[in-house]
């Protein structure tokens, strides 16, 4: 088990829900990793501390439900049940004809048979009601990137929890951590580098990762970016709106 796997198993370990194999592997990892052992002990103490808040006294047996109306389906409701299929059918038929009208369909009758013909469909317009997408580009200092932190797993968990929160709100489309290497630069720079005339050099910050989020405006995207744990660790986040290019015909 490595640090990341240990962090992933932490909730199960703290609440004794981990499978025996996982618990054994975690125990062995704790014996060799000071950071994970400290995190486990500290969070274990927090779990214990939660018990200091005592149980509330029950408000007793509330018998008011004996005075509540009967739950059985009443006659009015039965009548509604009878009418429900008829009303539903009528609504479905109305919707069907509305769709036909919207599609500019024409009913043709030939030789006693009828058929539907549709007018040419107009070219598709832009899709409405879609929030803009923004790319959050996470930069950090190379020193931060290169120095392995003792609490790396905890930090990664923090980013993941933040991303999970955005995903739950339907605001996250993608996000990835980038490898801690220099990457490749493609284009004229390759020839310049070969000739020793390289004009573009990497800045003081390196790109460490990215998220693609949904927001109504730059303000909204910036608000999301400000909640990212990356800022806490001294990083910088650039926010760029993703261009909406015309679709292929």
């Amino acid at each position, binding site marked *: 088990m490595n640090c990341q796997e240990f962090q992933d198993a932490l909730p*199960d370990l703290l609440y004794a829900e981990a499978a025996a194999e996982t618990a054994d592997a975690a125990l062995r990892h704790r014996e060799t990793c000071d950071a994970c052992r400290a995190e486990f002990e500290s969070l274990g103490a927090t779990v214990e*501390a939660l018990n200091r808040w005592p149980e509330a006294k*029950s408000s007793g047996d509330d018998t008011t439900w004996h005075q509540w109306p009967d*739950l059985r389906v009443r006659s009015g409701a039965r009548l509604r049940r009878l009418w429900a299929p008829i009303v539903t059918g009528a609504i479905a038929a109305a919707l069907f004809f509305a769709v036909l009208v919207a599609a500019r369909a024409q009913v043709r009758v030939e030789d006693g048979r009828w058929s539907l013909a549709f007018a040419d469909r107009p070219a598709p317009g832009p899709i409405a009601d879609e929030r803009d997408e923004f790319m959050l580009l996470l930069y950090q200092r190379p020193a931060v990137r290169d120095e392995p932190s003792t609490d790396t797993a905890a930090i990664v968990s923090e980013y993941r929890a933040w991303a999970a929160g955005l995903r739950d709100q339907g605001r996250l489309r993608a996000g990835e951590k980038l490898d801690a290497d220099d990457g490749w630069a493609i284009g004229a720079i390759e020839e310049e580098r070969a000739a020793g005339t390289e004009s573009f050099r990497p800045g003081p910050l390196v790109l460490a990762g990215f998220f693609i989020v949904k927001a109504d405006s730059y303000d909204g995207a910036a608000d999301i970016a400000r909640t990212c744990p990356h800022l806490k660790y001294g990083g910088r986040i650039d926010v760029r709106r993703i261009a909406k290019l015309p679709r292929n015909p």
Partner: protein
Amino acid sequence: MNDADARSDRELVRLAQGGSRDALGALLRRWNDPMVRLAHRLTGSPHDAEDVRQRALLKCHAALPRFKADAEFSTWLFRIVVNAARDVDRSRRVGARNAASLDPSVAHSRPAPPDAADELPESAAAVRDAVMALPEHLRSAIVLRHYLSLPFPAVAAVLEKPETTVKSHVLQALREVRRSLVPQHTDPTVRINEP
């Protein structure tokens, strides 16, 4: 204990849906204490917890005829309580905002403690305040897992979220609580372990 008390939840739900007040009574009596405990931990106040319980009972009564027997009654009931607590929390915030707009001095004053009547020792109050300071989604997850002792799959079912998300929220909640309880620049294990 009468006949109704000996029946399973599923049986009682079926009888209650058929109009048995005894069955409904037995069902709600059985789950009354967990409801109160959940409401109290979510709101931090016995007074608000009673408000949440009343709302949840009304909602439960209104929605029980539509409850499908393929789900666990307790899961469904806890979800109603969590939603009721969210409603109470929201209405309290709106009330506070309205009060602040009418009286600017309110906007700059500290919020009242969860319940003045709920007198607790300092260390217990600190834990309660730390839990209440959590965002709603983290609080629901930690309360269901820690104070209701529901296993993670059951918490996920109540909150209708993936289990991995729930675990992540519980972990995040524990870290937030730790941060609230431990002053900066001190050894967390030492301070938290104090009696």
